[in-house]
C-alpha cells in the first residue's frame, strides 16, 4: 500500500525547463488567466484545444506526462460519482421541452443535462490538471515569494500579504506530510486487524474513525510544534523583512505572456465568433 504515489498536489519536480525558470508571479498570473479562459470556453472542441495546449506546456516542463495526470486517480471516483448524480437527478430542473433520454420516477435524464455536466466534468479535470502543473513546476519558496509579491499589490487596501502567503504555503507544504502520516496510521490500524476496504457504506464510514481521530490529533500536535518553531525563530510577519532571492521578470516571461495571451485570443475568437456546436 502506498498512497503517496498518487498524490501530486503540493509536490515539486525540480527540472531546468523554461516552465520552471519562469518568474513565479508570471506563472501564477498566467494560470489565473488560463483558468478564467476555461470558464469562458464552453465546448468540447474548445476543451480539446485547451488540453492540447496544456499537454504542450507539460512537454516543455520535461515532467513525465503520466505523472502530471496521476493525481487525478484518487479524485476520479468522486468526480464520476458527482457526475452520475447530477445527470440522474437534476432532470427535473430542465423544462418540459428538454429531450428526455430516460425517465423512471424521480430519475429524469435529459440530453441537456448530459451535455452540461459532461462539460463540467471535463472542466474540473482540466482545472485540476492545470493546478497540478503549476505546483509541480514551482518550488515552494518560489511559490510563496510569488504569491506574497502579488498580494502585496493589495497591501494598501489592508490585505495581509505575508500572512496569507504563509498560510497558503503551510497548507501546501503539509499535503505530502499528512499523506505520509495518513498512510502510516492506516497501516498501523490494518496491522491491528482493521479492515478498511470492505463493507457497506455505514461500516466503511465507521472504519474511518480509527484513522481520522489519530490523524486529527497528530495534525494538531504538529501545528503546535510549528507554532513553537516559528516563535522560537522570532517570526512576526513580513514587516521589514528583506529577501535574499529577488524575483526578476526576464525576456522568457514576456514570451510566455505573449504565447498565453495569443492562445487566449484565438480560443475566445473560436468560442465567440465560430460558436462551435460541440
Amino acid at each position, binding site marked *: 500500500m502506498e498512497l503517496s504515489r498518487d498524490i501530486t498536489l503540493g509536490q515539486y519536480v525540480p527540472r531546468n525547463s523554461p516552465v520552471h525558470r519562469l518568474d513565479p508571479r508570471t506563472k501564477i498570473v498566467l494560470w489565473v488567466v488560463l483558468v478564467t479562459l476555461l470558464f469562458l470556453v464552453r465546448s468540447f472542441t474548445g476543451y480539446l484545444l485547451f488540453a492540447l495546449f496544456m499537454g504542450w506546456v507539460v512537454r516543455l516542463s520535461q515532467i513525465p506526462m503520466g505523472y502530471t495526470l496521476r493525481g487525478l486517480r484518487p479524485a476520479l471516483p468522486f468526480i464520476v460519482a458527482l457526475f452520475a448524480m447530477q445527470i440522474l437527478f437534476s432532470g427535473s430542473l430542465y423544462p418540459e421541452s428538454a429531450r428526455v433520454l430516460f425517465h423512471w420516477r424521480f430519475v429524469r435524464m435529459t440530453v441537456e443535462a448530459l451535455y452540461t455536466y459532461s462539460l463540467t466534468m471535463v472542466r474540473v479535470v482540466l482545472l485540476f490538471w492545470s493546478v497540478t502543473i503549476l505546483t509541480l513546476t514551482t518550488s515552494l519558496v518560489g511559490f510563496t515569494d510569488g504569491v506574497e509579491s502579488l498580494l502585496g499589490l493589495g497591501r494598501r487596501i489592508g490585505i495581509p500579504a505575508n500572512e496569507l502567503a504563509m498560510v497558503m504555503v503551510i497548507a501546501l507544504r503539509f499535503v505530502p506530510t499528512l499523506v505520509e502520516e495518513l498512510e502510516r496510521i492506516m497501516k498501523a490500524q490494518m496491522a491491528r*486487524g482493521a479492515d478498511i476496504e470492505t463493507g457497506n457504506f455505514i461500516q466503511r464510514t465507521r472504519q474511518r474513525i480509527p484513522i481520522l481521530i489519530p490523524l486529527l490529533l497528530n495534525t494538531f500536535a504538529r501545528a503546535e510544534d510549528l507554532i513553537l518553531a516559528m516563535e522560537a525563530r522570532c517570526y512576526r510577519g513580513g514587516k521589514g523583512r528583506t529577501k535574499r532571492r529577488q524575483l526578476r521578470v526576464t525576456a522568457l516571461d514576456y514570451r510566455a505572456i505573449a504565447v498565453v495571451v495569443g492562445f487566449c485570443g484565438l480560443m475566445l475568437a473560436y468560442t465567440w465568433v465560430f460558436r462551435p456546436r460541440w
Partner: protein
Amino acid sequence: MLITVENLEHTYMAGTPFETKVLHGVDLEVREGEMLGLVGPSQSGKSTLVQYFNGLFVPRGKGRVVVDGIDTSRKGANLKALRQKVGLVFQYPEHQLFKGTVGEDVAFGPRCLGVPPAEIGPRVDGALRAVGLDPEVFRDRYIFALSGGQKRRVAIAGVLAMNPRIMVFDDPTAGLDPRGRVEILDTIARLHREQGLTVVFVSNSLEDVARLADRVAVLAGGRVVRVGRPAEVFSDVDTLARIGLGTLQTVDVLARLRQKGWDVRLTALGVEEAAREILRAYRARLARQASPGAGGCPGGTL
C-alpha cells in the same frame, strides 16, 4: 522456517519522477522462537522490509515472502489471517491510539478479528499484564493521561491482544527517555522469554541488539550483508565500517587496541566482558614480559 524472504525487491514511488529503489534483492530467514535484531544505516530499507512480514506490502513481480506457510506473493493470500499471526508495532505506535480509555483501545484488535465479546476482556487484561501494566489500575484510565512510555506499552498491548505468534517491532525505543527505553526493552525480552514469541526488532541502537538478540541481520544498500550471532556480526568491524554503520562502542575500543598490537579478541560485546578481555590481554603481556627471553615494555598504556 517461520518467515522466508527470497530475493525481495521494493521500489518506492514507482512510475513517478521520485522513484527510488530501497530493496535490491533481500534474502532472510526468521526462525521459530528466536529473537532477531535487524540493524542497518538509515534509509537501508529496514522499515520497508518489516512491512512485508505482515502483508502490508506484498511482493509484486520479483521476490517472494512466505510467512508460516502463507505465500504473500500469491494472489488471494489470506492477509487478514497473516496480520493476526504477525503483530507489527510501528515506529511511535502511540500515535495510532484513538479510543478514550486504555481498555477500549487494546480491545480494538481482537474486536476487528471477531473474537467473541466474552473473550475480549480476559485478552485485554492478559495483554496489559504482558506489557507490565496492571489491568486493574490501567484498564479504565484515559489514554491522554498516560506518559509517553506508558502509551507506547498500551500500543504494544493492542497488538499483543491479537495473540500473534511473531512480534515485529520497528525501532521500539525511538524518542523515549533512558528509563522508557529500559522498560520497553525489558518488556520485549520478557515476551520472548515467557510467552515464547518469535521476535524481530529493528533498532538503531547496536548495544540494545547485542544485549537482546539471538541473531543479527545487517541490512545495507537494500541487501542483507551479514547475518549471524551478535558476536560474529559485531566483530566484523571492516564490513560494518564499510557500510557506514560502525560497531559497538566496546568492540570499537577493542579493535583500536588490536590495531596498536594488543592481542584482544573482538567478540566481547558487553562492557564487563570487554574490560575482562582487556585485562586478560594486559596480564598476558605482563606475564610474557616477566618471563625470561622477553624484553621491552608494553606498547601503550592502560
